């Protein structure tokens, strides 16, 4: 009996702690504004979203975007680098105010944290040269052609997993380039038939090169990405969402996308 009693006491204490954790209701937004500082976590090992620059500082699409968000909130930005797996736990336990690290929405994650509005949705595009006479109605159709892609990108991963591994696209017909502009050059020269890349930088590419055109675009390898916020903090979410919409409306995010995704 005594052992059971201790167990019950322990459980009650744990439950009280948990209740204590969730009943903190005042918005983090007030704290951020009072301290004039927002603490944001990222896993700086995912170029071009977040990575180290030559000087060893954190840079990337997410990083510059967050800097602008903090700027528009009128607060300083403090970065905390952490492995990706630890970020959600760090936000839900209050170690971080929020986290930006190319997070896709995920039901499991949504149970312990909240998500902002998507600040960016990556779409994939297929680009062809003026000599191209084939047709692409479903994405798998490109398996019939010589395909180019930037190596190590999500598009490279999608092509490898969905076309090369199942044997639809022979490995020899997939050319992996260090940069998208190198692939575009080969496309214009006819060495490859189709280039798969992120839609945003591709639009800039096509605008510069009248020989090229986009024949297909869709969310294949990617999707909407969001900022991870503490669970149930509606005030903070409203403020972040408001700024994200502002940044989308005034073209800031599109400019960043061109800067980071068009190499």
């Amino acid at each position, binding site marked *: 009996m005594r052992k059971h009693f201790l167990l019950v006491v322990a459980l009650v204490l744990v439950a009280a702690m948990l209740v204590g954790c969730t009943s903190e209701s005042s918005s983090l937004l007030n704290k951020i504004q009072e301290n004039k500082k927002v603490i944001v976590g990222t896993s700086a090992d995912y170029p071009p979203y977040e990575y*180290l620059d*030559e000087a060893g500082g954190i840079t990337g699409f997410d990083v510059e975007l967050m800097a602008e968000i903090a700027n528009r909130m009128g607060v300083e930005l403090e970065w905390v*680098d*952490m492995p990706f797996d*630890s970020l959600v736990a*760090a936000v839900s336990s209050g170690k971080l105010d929020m986290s930006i690290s190319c997070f896709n929405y995920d039901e499991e994650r949504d149970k312990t944290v909240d998500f902002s509005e998507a600040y960016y949705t990556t779409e994939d595009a297929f680009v062809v040269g003026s000599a191209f006479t084939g047709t692409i109605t479903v994405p798998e159709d490109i398996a019939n052609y010589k395909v180019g892609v930037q190596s*190590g990108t999500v598009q490279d991963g999608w092509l490898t997993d969905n076309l090369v591994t199942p044997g639809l696209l022979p490995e020899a017909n997939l050319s992996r380039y260090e940069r998208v502009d190198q692939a575009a050059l080969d496309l214009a020269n006819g060495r490859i038939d189709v280039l798969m890349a992120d839609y945003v930088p591709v639009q800039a590419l096509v605008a510069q090169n009248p020989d090229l055109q986009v024949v297909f675009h869709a969310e294949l390898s990617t999707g909407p990405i969001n900022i991870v916020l503490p669970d149930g903090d509606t005030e903070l979410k409203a403020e972040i969402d408001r700024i994200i919409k502002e940044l989308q409306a005034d073209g800031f995010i599109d400019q960043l996308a061109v800067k980071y995704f068009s190499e």
Partner: protein
Amino acid sequence: MDLGQFVSYIASGTVYTVGVTLISLPAGLLIGIILALLYVYGGKTAARVLNLYSTIFRGIPPVVLLFILFFAVSKGINLSAFWAGSLSLGVVSSAYQMEIVRGALLSVSGDQMMAARAVGLSRLQAIRYVVIPQAIRLAIPPWSNEAAIIIKDSSLVYALGVPEILRRAQLIGASSQKYLPAYISAAIIYFLLVFITTHLLTLLEKKLAIPSNP
């Protein structure tokens, strides 16, 4: 980024590796010695409680304790990643170091205690002047093993984002796509740290050796 910058970026994480080790290893030693003395000379109840202590903390992976300290207890006490890492490693290590010191204390023959008491030393004096000086010498080889383990385990704090050697290797590996050189650099740095430490401890062991009792 040239090779020099590349390696020195990873190597600058050594500060954290050495920092975590310099906190957790001596803390674990201090607690370990006190607990071992209590275990051996403190009577049955103390021995039972400490046996439980040792069983629990040797049974929990340091990284689990690290997450408990950093994420679960964080509401009450706001520990930084560095301190959460140092403390959890120190606690786990104290259990191991207690066992090391306890083993050393027990391997000093009981006859020596009797002989010391027979020539008029008190029990405390016998422990202080006869048993401990011999036990410490016996404890050095297994202790240098523990030191090597702690140096390597300090890499666990990378999981909380402390920019130590391993995390830096990951980051620079990702941004430069040179994963192999990055991890090999990290391995070499860890190896050198452990090699130097164990070498110094071997020298200490030789220096402290009792000449007639090699």
